[in-house]
């Protein structure tokens, strides 16, 4: 590390590379946090977690008892001096006692992307609520025809405030927060929709995964879906890793907009791997809202294709928006190339996904590690090789959701055992030295040493 700092100082390495390197190192050491704990305020399993996009500080958790809690991940509520753990209690919770609150299990939560003043929750009571964070009251309520399984808001949307809602109904509904009404209905799935994800590159593009095993891409300005992912259409090589990590950082930090990002990416993809893309111009047209063309996904053969042999439980785009991860109840995690819509055939080994509702995947900030909830544990995979990096064990129930806090390289997981666990890299040496002082006062607990009396 010191060498790295030195290199940065003298200009031998790029300024960002050291930080990236350190971050990547820390992410790889992630394990059950010994110094941070979230005190779950919920009486049943946690179904959904999200960290807000603006400050990357507040954790929103939805639980199966219909309660929603907000936790501060930075400022601990109190220190448990006996075990030297910072406890984070809920800043507030809302549950069925609040007027119009959810009475059944909350399946999905979503911060309003622009600020933390609002959040949206969807529940099995067929309601989608928009909450005011400061008053803890329901501001707006959407009635859905069926149980709500997934909601999503686009973090890059500049021109709309749409909440996409996937329910047990086959149609995806887009609810406009501005007008308080349902504006769109996207039909195409043959079963309920459990996973929704907005594109990271275009504010108009929505990805959805359903119980019928299909993953569909929608352009909300047009009728019907424009692509259905087929697990059998595959490409061996990945194409998104062409940019080095530093370049990607620069890309990510560039002003985010649909046109600019696609404009920047297209030439890169073209230049480096022209052979893998069959019709680059055509794909570019899909991205380009201006061009009208017939949807290849609408042909009958493609319309029937599936991405998983079971339900699709989770969708997650990579940080750069070029790849899409999907998890299904066939215990498979697949990595898709968004532009070509092909399966990259990365084999994520030994996952065990047996849920009856949508889950969440998480990706580390440089898209190097993928976190997959798998039964009672959370497994981390190397994104590109698919090799399991570690297995995070600590929950005593099914892990339902996870949220990655990129700033601190911390991971939060929610499970059916009603715990929210914090996974973090081990504390650095300097911090531990500071901690030594209060340690002397505690004599009741045993030292963690060998104690062979005989």
């Amino acid at each position: 590390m010191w060498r790295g700092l030195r290199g940065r100082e003298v200009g031998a390495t790029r300024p960002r590379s050291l930080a990236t390197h350190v971050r990547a190192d820390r992410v790889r050491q992630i394990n059950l946090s010994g110094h941070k704990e979230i005190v779950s305020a919920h009486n049943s399993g946690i179904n959904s977690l999200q960290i807000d996009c603006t400050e990357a500080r507040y954790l929103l958790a939805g639980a199966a008892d219909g309660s929603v809690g907000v936790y501060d991940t930075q400022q601990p509520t109190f220190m448990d001096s006996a075990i030297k753990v910072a406890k984070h209690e809920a800043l507030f919770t809302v549950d069925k006692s609040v007027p119009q609150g959810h009475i059944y299990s909350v399946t999905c939560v979503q911060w309003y992307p622009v600020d933390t003043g609002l959040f949206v929750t969807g529940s099995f009571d067929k309601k989608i609520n928009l909450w005011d964070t400061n008053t803890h009251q329901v501001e707006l309520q959407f009635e859905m025809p069926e149980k709500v399984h997934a909601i999503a808001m686009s973090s890059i949307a500049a021109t709309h405030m749409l909440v996409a809602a996937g329910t047990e109904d086959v149609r995806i509904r887009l609810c406009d927060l501005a007008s308080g009404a349902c504006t769109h209905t996207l039909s195409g799935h043959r079963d309920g929709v459990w996973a929704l994800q907005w594109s990271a590159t275009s504010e108009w593009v929505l990805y959805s995964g359903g119980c019928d095993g299909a993953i569909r891409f929608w352009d909300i300005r047009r009728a019907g879906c424009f692509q259905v992912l087929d697990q059998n259409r595959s490409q061996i090589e990945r194409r998104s890793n062409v940019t080095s990590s530093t370049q990607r950082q620069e890309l990510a930090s560039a002003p985010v907009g649909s046109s600019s990002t696609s404009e920047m990416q297209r030439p890169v993809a073209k230049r480096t791997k022209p052979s893998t893309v069959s019709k680059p111009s055509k794909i570019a047209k899909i991205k380009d809202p201006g061009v009208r063309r017939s949807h290849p996904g609408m042909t009958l053969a493609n319309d029937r294709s599936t991405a998983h042999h079971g339900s699709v439980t989770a969708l997650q785009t990579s940080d750069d928006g070029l790849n899409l991860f999907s998890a299904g109840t066939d215990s498979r995690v697949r990595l898709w190339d968004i532009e070509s819509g092909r399966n990259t055939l990365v084999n994520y080994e030994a996952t065990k996904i047996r849920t009856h509702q949508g889950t969440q995947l998480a990706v580390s900030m440089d898209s190097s590690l993928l976190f997959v909830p798998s039964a009672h544990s959370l497994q981390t995979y190397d994104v590109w090789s698919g090799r399991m990096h570690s297995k995070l064990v600590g929950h005593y129930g099914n892990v339902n959701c996870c949220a990655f806090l990129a700033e601190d390289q911390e991971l939060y997981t929610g499970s059916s055992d009603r715990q929210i666990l914090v996974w973090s890299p081990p504390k650095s040496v300097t911090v531990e030295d500071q901690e030594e002082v209060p340690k002397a006062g505690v004599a009741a607990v045993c030292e963690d040493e060998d104690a062979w009396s005989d």
Partner: protein
Amino acid sequence: MEVGEVSRDRRKLTYLIEDATVSPAKSLDIGLLQSIKALVRSSDANVRTAFDTLFDKLQRQHSQVRFLAVLLIDELFTRSKLFRSLLVPKFEMFMLLTIGYRDDFPLPKPPDRATLLRTTSMELVEKWNDTFGVHYKQVRLGYEYLKKTLRLQFPNLRAATALAEQQRQEKEARTQALILKKYESLCQNFSELRTEIHTTLDEIAECCKILELESASALEDNEPVLEADLESLVFGDDEYEEYGDSSLRRELHKEVPEQVAVTEKLKETTDNSALFETLRDLYKLVESNHLRTTQEWLSILTRVDVSDTRSRDAVLKEVIDLRTQLLGSLVKCESLGIDRTEKASTSRFTVGEVDDDIIWEPGDAEADKDLGEIASTSYAFNMEKESNNSLPSDKELHSSSAVTQSEAKKERAETGPRAELLEKAPILPYGSFLDSWGATSDVPANQRGLEMDNHWGRFDSEAMIPGDKIAEMNVRSSFYKPPEREIVPCRAPLKKGGLCPRRDLFRCPLHGPIIPRDDNGNPIRTLEIDTSAAKPADKAPMEEFSDINKEDFLSASSSSKNASSSITVADLAKEAIANVRERDEAEARKRRDEKVKAKRTQSKRDREHNDAVLRASALSGTCQELFGEEFDDVAKMRIGKKRARGGLTALLKKNPTVKERIAQRLLNGRARENAMNELARVEEARHRDAAANQWN
């Protein structure tokens, strides 16, 4: 060398753990545990091996194995850091296997051990959480999960003990405050109470003195001491204190104290009686009041916790003195014949009453006895009447009573009409039909105790089955079974010795018609008895069949024609017997002797066999528990299987700490005890063997 040692250690450890987890006991074998610990301590590789083996054991489908494994895991978990770090990642699995909190993974079979396993492991998890929860978050999470999410009831030992301790302290503080208050009041009132007691004591002393003086001047009486008669005691009582054998007298006195007291009061002069009266009152006062108060003071003074110990000690001393004085005076009083049993009686009895009692009581007893007799006879009479009444009213009823009481008949002999009835009663097999035997009442038909919807039509819940219908339904049919008859063996003497075992009805194809014979196979001439016994034998009940002698057999299995044929054979045999009897008898004797001899040798062999069996079983069953502990586990390993040896003992000998030596000595003592028990058991078994013929 290292590789070999490691593999050997591993093998040994595996064996040891295997050994430790297969016993049916509810705790670990101490010797084994010691050696396992020593072995595990020696290297990290061994810790890993131990962990792997133990986790394997945990997955066995047997709660006892799991239980012992858990105990062993606890031993290692509390000691080795490496072991902890190995177990903690698998903590969920561990809890699943030991606590069985999930329905799809229940604990395996022996249910009592399963509950034991669960409670033990919950205790352990709690303990570990208390001690290591800080360092191992998994343990803490697991504990919290069990406690808060699954809401399992933990024993919560730490809190419980703390609570108990607190309660005890509170209680102590309360009692201390109370005692202190009492002590203060005692200090205030002590002088008054002391003077009071002193006056009482003085009075008693006065009384006693006067009485002694009186008795010294009184006459002597030479009544025989042992006479327990009331009158004699009355007369002999006045001067008993002068006698050498006063102790004996005193004993007697105690036996009938009230009469003595009464008679004293009666017979004494008036001033004497008054003295006694006061003495009695004083005695009562001392016993009921003063003694108790002093006792109380004593307890207060000994328990009170005050800063000023000197004053307390002074008071305590005085109280003790007072108490001894009081006790002394009491002894004095008792020696004068005043006893605590007196208290109740003296006030009640007067002369006339005593006489009345004496007169009345025997009469009363007699009356009671008479009454009892009357009651019992009338009861018997009633019973008889009942059975008589029931006889004509219902013919089933009387048979039912006969049936139910037929068992009772064996216990107590019955007489009268009841016995006759019993004799007539049919013997029936037991069955549920006996429940409603002789019942004449109607029975509700549709009341089964269940609310049922009737799909087949209207449901009449008030439908009744009339009593006679029930009786009709209870009529039982039975089939005639011919009385069993035993077919007698032929019993003609055979050439090779013994009697002919053939069983034919009338005629043995080898030896001719079957006739009664004696033990040697000689025919018995039983002409006269035959004819007389021919008739009734047919009627003889089954039970008597075994007792029937040979004459009866013949007649039972024959007609008169057979009897006549047997007569002719008997005549012929008569002459033959006369000739050969002596020779036969000699032979028979010889044979008998041989038989006895053979029997003796057989029994001797039996006994030897039994001895051998016993010895073998004693050796094989107990040598391990006898000597295993002494020789330590190496010896055990040698006895059990061929296993790697050495190393272990070396390890143990390397550092024989004080603790180890003490443990060794303790173990030796235990082994000796075991051996003694075992010897006693063998002795007992041998005794049993001597009594029984065959015992295996």
